[in-house]
């Protein structure tokens, strides 16, 4: 049967970075037309393994065999030529080029005079390609004008535009919402039917169970298991990943109090926000759901003073306030975890300790002089609390795994001990175990009286964690549910605008 034809074999792959053994003797077999799930905690080595496969990194030891032939993959271009394409975990699209240029970068259609690009054809091909993928994006516009989720879809489109036998997807869904995920999955099935093999990495276990044929598990750079998906259940899988049993995924205990901490009234800004009002109570976790581009991020940014408002009022603890800058927001006790960690959250060239401490320097210094002991204590405490996987607190953040970086940003905002905590996609790219811990942490904070506004595109998360849920559609609140009344269907209906029409 075609399914059993081995398409790729990686054998004995090891890789170490200064202070970290990222991979130890890892073996991987991928069959033709197979969807292989690759799971593991943050920093387990998933991306490293795939980067070796695609020529971005070079392994210290090990052999890669493609269709039975040993190969040497020197650089990304070679990998492409050998029919391996990858969707990177971090967005790797170029914001100052157009969508179409991004998709075909490096393989532009040419005019008869060979060095001239056939722009017309390029945009035509892009459009056709998008049609096949059910994507509604104009290939002519600049990528910088797209939302994060749309950029992710462009990245997917780019990877699928190669005539590849193997497509690696490193957390392709982390910034996508339900609709796009569905779309992507039906695509993956089509590819599978064409005999294309897929490596699928995700921290969303329900996706793993929905789509993959077989799953392999990495823990601390070691391959700890491989099984057809039909032979494992989620509990077992998590146990393999973390090496111990996990209790409830979304434990929920706190009870909201009635005291209003934050009220916003009629927030308006162009067509992004068309009059948003809501209250947030002490000890409450308020979920904010909606489709990509519905304006959730704008609500958060407006409250935090990151964007100017045209109209609207913000009240904190019963007092009307003017918030014109993040600094002022912070002084009112508001914290804001932005959705794009690389662009808005991290200082990649600085050590982990500085990244965590930076919002809290007033506490950690005397007369402007840093008290290093305090700073290191703070950093260490968060490394422990959030299980941040790092060789030391002085590790440069650029060298951390994607999910670990997310934890660092989260730690930065928790360090402030805020009254109001706004989290925009807080668990993007975070592994299940840690996600549960973060949710527990949110519950703990809520119990202590922190008011939390959580934006999330992952409906199970919204449903599991929130006391109350708001749904946004095109810059307006289109629905509100108490925890006990909310269901995925009701939320989706409001999110797509269905509730307003009918």
């Amino acid at each position, binding site marked *: 049967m075609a399914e059993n034809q081995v398409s790729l074999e990686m054998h004995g792959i090891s890789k170490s970075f200064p202070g970290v053994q990222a991979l130890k003797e890892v073996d991987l077999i991928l069959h033709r037309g197979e969807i292989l799930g690759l799971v593991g905690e943050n920093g387990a080595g998933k991306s490293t393994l795939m980067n070796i496969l695609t020529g971005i990194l070079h392994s210290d030891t090990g052999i890669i065999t493609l269709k039975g032939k040993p190969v040497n993959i020197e*650089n990304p*271009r070679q990998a492409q030529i050998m029919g391996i394409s990858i969707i990177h975990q971090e967005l790797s699209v*170029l*914001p100052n080029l157009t969508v179409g*240029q991004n998709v075909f*970068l*490096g*393989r*532009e259609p040419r005019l008869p005079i060979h060095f001239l*690009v056939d722009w017309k054809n390029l945009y035509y091909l892009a459009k056709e390609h998008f049609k096949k993928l059910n994507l509604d994006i104009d290939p002519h516009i600049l990528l910088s004008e797209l939302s994060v989720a749309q950029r992710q879809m462009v990245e997917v489109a780019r990877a699928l535009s190669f005539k590849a036998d193997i497509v690696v997807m490193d957390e392709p869904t982390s910034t996508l919402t339900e609709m796009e995920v569905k779309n992507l999955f039906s695509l993956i099935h089509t590819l599978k039917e064409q005999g294309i093999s897929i490596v699928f990495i995700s921290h969303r276990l329900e996706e793993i169970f929905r789509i993959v044929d077989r799953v392999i598990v990495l823990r601390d750079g070691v391959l700890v298991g491989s099984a057809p998906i039909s032979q494992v259940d989620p509990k077992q899988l998590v146990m393999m990943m973390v090496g111990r049993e996990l209790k409830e995924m979304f434990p929920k205990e706190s009870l909201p109090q009635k005291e209003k901490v934050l009220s916003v009234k009629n927030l308006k800004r162009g067509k992004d926000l068309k009059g948003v009002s809501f209250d947030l109570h002490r000890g409450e976790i308020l979920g904010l759901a909606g489709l990509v581009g519905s304006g959730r991020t704008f609500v958060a940014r407006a409250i935090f003073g990151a964007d100017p408002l045209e109209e609207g009022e913000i009240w904190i603890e019963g007092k009307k306030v003017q918030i014109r800058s993040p600094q002022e927001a912070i002084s009112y006790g508001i914290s804001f975890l932005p959705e794009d960690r690389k662009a808005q959250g991290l200082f990649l060239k600085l050590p982990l300790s500085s990244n965590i401490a930076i919002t809290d320097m007033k506490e950690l210094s005397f007369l402007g002089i840093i008290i290093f002991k305090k700073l290191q204590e703070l950093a260490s405490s968060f490394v422990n609390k959030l299980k941040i996987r790092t060789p030391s607190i002085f590790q440069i953040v650029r060298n951390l795994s994607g999910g670990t970086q997310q934890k660092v940003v989260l730690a930065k905002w928790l360090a402030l001990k805020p009254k109001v905590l706004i989290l925009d996609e807080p668990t993007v790219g975070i592994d299940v175990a840690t996600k549960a811990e973060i949710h527990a942490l949110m519950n703990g904070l809520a119990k202590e009286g922190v008011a939390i506004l959580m934006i999330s595109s992952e409906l199970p998360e919204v449903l599991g964690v929130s006391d109350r849920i708001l749904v946004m559609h095109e810059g307006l609140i289109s629905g509100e549910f108490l925890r006990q009344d909310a269901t995925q269907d009701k939320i989706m209906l409001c999110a797509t605008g269905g509730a307003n029409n009918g």
Partner: protein
Amino acid sequence: MAKEKTFNEFLRNSSAYLILLGLVVIFTTLTPRFLSLTNLINVFLQTSIVALLAIGQTFVMLTGGIDLSVGMVGICCGAIAAGFATGYGFGFTLGTYPALILGLLLGATLGGISGLLIVLGNFPPFVATLVMMAIAQGITLVFTQGRPIAGLPSSFIFWGSGSVGGIPMPVLLLVIGVVLAYFLLTCTSFGLYIYAIGGNKEMARLSGISARKVELGAYIISGLTAALGGLVLTGRLASAQPNVGEGLNLDSIAACVLGGTSLFGGKGNMLKTLVGALIMGALANGLNLIGVPSYPQLVIKGLVFIAAVTLYIVSSRKH
């Protein structure tokens, strides 16, 4: 609302043109001589050398680099070509055209060396081209022994001082250069890669582009246009001068930046670079025509720089 946005967009895309237009209007009201045909040709002529260097500089800056050596490389190529054309220093004479071609080749080579230092030696562009600036200046001084090389054949001088149909050669060459460069940047994959690299070198590499080759190409082009500028300057001065060219580096960078090219790469275009250069040329010419003494000219020049960029920034701010 929508109208306002498009107006802002218009302002942002054309602020360089507007500044140039503003200068023209101001100078025309102050002195009628400014808008005469001969003077406009003067402005173009006086801008041509800096603008030629700015062409290559734009390529380099689009990749996120900088080339501090353009002035000196230009002078160096001018001197060596003059040596070939007159026999100075070599003891034998080549014809004007072989000399000019060797001059251009030398420019491409020097630019290529900067590029190699950057892509293989991993030098920051600033340092690599600073080193090249010192070396090119050194070669010039050693070769010329610090003396100008005169006695150029008239066919050589023609390229800097001659004119075709009333249009001075430097202006003609500039127009050809800008058109070619514009074409290269917008119609070829090389041009696309230049922008891609400037956006993010690492990501461009991940996309399978051989970023090193493209970056190297940008520096070679910069060396080439620098040489062209140097040869034209040599023709314009009817002699190779070992000691000019110091100010040309910053001027060429300023032309790019006034035209809206980002220092961090990925943003900018060739026509606007030309406009940026013309802004500087028109300013110098206009101030001379209305008789502003030389010291205050500096102050005004500085103020106009700042004002120009302010206009650009303020108009491009999103609201």
